[in-house]
């Protein structure tokens, strides 16, 4: 697995807390502003998921759909995404960087070119929503060669057979989707999430991060008591939606909310 991702989780464990994973869509609301927002957010989190904007984000709710639309309307290209990743890497040598998106973007660019370029700017992992374990043969070897962890999703509907598949194909961490739904929906029931995580741990030693619908410090604290990481996406993105122009204000808000979430994620001893 990517050495840096392993180190992130080891560090969090040593500090007796869960990792905070934050998502923003690259290029939202513009390439320049997006770079500033990501750099601002990165200061307070352990892993940043950089969203590759896509014309047809089938697994996303209205908030991240709109972010993709804004990013594409602003003319965001893969070069810009790489540039943002590179700037984050320069400023934060230890943060985990994951590119997250839909299969058609890397497929069309070519998995080899995609992986080579991503790895060159310091990306650690790739999460493609519509490449399940069964189809990961398309890119698995290429990602491995470039030392990129392929992060697999699991969901409430995943059977033990599917958990096994993801455990075998996945690397870096497992992203557990808290509810059967799209991004931005209400978070799933904590007790159910906890049960499913215990089941997944029987099949995989990878760290498990839980995401979808996390908005509050209470939710983050609940999840942090048993998950290795907590992913926050739509909640961060929605701060861009509500402040389209005031760049500094958005950075401040992102920083404030990220630090509040992070400090809620220390485990009780």
């Amino acid at each position, binding site marked *: 697995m990517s050495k840096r991702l392993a180190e992130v989780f080891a560090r969090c464990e040593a500090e007796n807390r869960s990792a905070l994973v934050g998502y923003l869509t690259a290029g939202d609301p513009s390439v320049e502003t997006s770079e500033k927002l990501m750099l601002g957010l990165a200061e307070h989190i352990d892993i940043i998921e950089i969203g590759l904007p896509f014309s047809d984000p089938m697994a996303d709710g209205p908030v991240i759909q709109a972010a993709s639309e804004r990013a594409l309307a602003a003319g965001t290209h893969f070069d810009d995404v790489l540039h943002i990743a590179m700037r984050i890497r320069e400023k934060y040598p230890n943060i985990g960087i994951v590119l997250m998106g839909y299969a*058609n973007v890397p497929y069309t660019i070519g998995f080899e070119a995609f992986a080579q370029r991503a790895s060159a700017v310091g990306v650690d992992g790739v999460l493609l929503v519509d490449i399940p374990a069964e189809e990961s043969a398309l890119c698995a070897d290429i990602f491995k060669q470039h030392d990129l962890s392929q992060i697999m999703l699991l969901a409430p509907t995943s059977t033990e057979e599917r958990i096994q598949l993801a455990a075998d194909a996945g690397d870096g961490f497992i992203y557990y989707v808290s509810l059967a739904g799209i991004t931005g929906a209400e978070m799933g029931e904590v007790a159910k999430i906890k049960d499913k995580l215990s089941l997944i741990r029987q099949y995989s030693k990878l760290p498990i991060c839980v995401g979808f619908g996390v908005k509050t410090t209470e939710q983050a604290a609940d999840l942090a008591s048993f998950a290795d990481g907590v992913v926050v996406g739509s909640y961060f993105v929605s701060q861009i939606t509500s402040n389209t122009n005031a760049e500094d204000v958005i950075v401040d808000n992102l920083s404030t909310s990220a630090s509040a979430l992070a400090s809620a994620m220390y485990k009780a001893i």
Partner: protein
Amino acid sequence: MIDYDLSIKHAPDEGGHFGEYGGRFAAETLMQPLKEIEDAFFSAWADPSFHEERLDLLKNYVGRATPLYHAKQLTAEVGGAQIYLKREDLNHTGAHKVNNTIGQALLARRMGKKKVIAETGAGQHGVATATVAAMFNMQCDIYMGREDIRRQAPNVFRMKLLGANVIPVDSGNATLKDAVNEALRVWVASCEDTYYIFGTAAGPHPFPLMVRQFHTVIGQEARKQCLEQAGRLPDVAVACVGGGSNAMGLLHPMWDDEEVRLVAVEAGGHGLNSGEHAASLAKGKPGIIHGSLSYVLADNEGQISADAHSISAGLDYPGVGPELAFMMKQGRLDLDSATDDEALEAFQILTKAEGIIPALESSHALAAGMRIAATMEQDQVVLINLSGRGDKDLGTVMDLLGFDDEGKS
């Protein structure tokens, strides 16, 4: 009623791959629900009582077998091969789409689902879904792009009369691809009690296989009828392609008849070089959209084209079913296309020559079929799939051709 062949020919591999195309490129949450549909489909397909009920409904509710009509007036006007029309327009609800919705609604019922959802472009699949939902007493939500709602108003009203909710989709271009995205999003959150009746031979496995199987009644009947009426198989079989359901239905049963040339007609829109068309096979490239690897219209970084265009809402789709890509690559499927203008002209020619008003989608197959027939001998046969009737398109055509109060166009 003919004795249908219920074997599954040219099956994909276990993961639903037709060669390198197809597969199941879906979000994790949908992988298990899709597997459940796959299992239910194979178990139903192996169960004679499933076919008994399905074929009974196709006969007595839908009106199958549909006729094969020797269009002598059209043949004379074109001057070339004999043109035969497979009359899917005479099905209940007015298009081929109902062959599939009957099959999938039976499957949904076997799986104990009480609610169905579907996407629709032209509204024909939406109407066919709303129709079977009414008959099976299932709750029904239809997702439809706002642009298509405008273009296909009569079908929207039909769906509402049938008791379905028609939910407008505003994202993207507000057409068919966006309706699919939205239906997928809703299904992710509701798959426990809801069945997604996918409307064409695309999408994640098992939809391309299953939709094809439910439609092969078209080609099996046409093949037999052609032998009876013309004393031979067609030299050329022609169908229009949106996602590929009527094309696979007509053409797939003739795959192994090597003497039959199989032609898929894509929407040429404003012309194949205009950038505004929906010719995914001719002008697109391999890509992954809506759950399968096939041909798509996309830019260099994989963004799906916002410029896909066709006069007919049912063909206005930047993707295509994976098995068509496979057949094309195998050299078993020839491509053709018809522009908006050619389709509109074919629409009028058939109407006047034969008293049959075709759907604008089917008019694309007609335009190409007539063009091909004109280059052939009189003792040859061209079989064209008349996938639907044109009532739903009268508003669009009236706007384009103009209409004055005295009824002259």
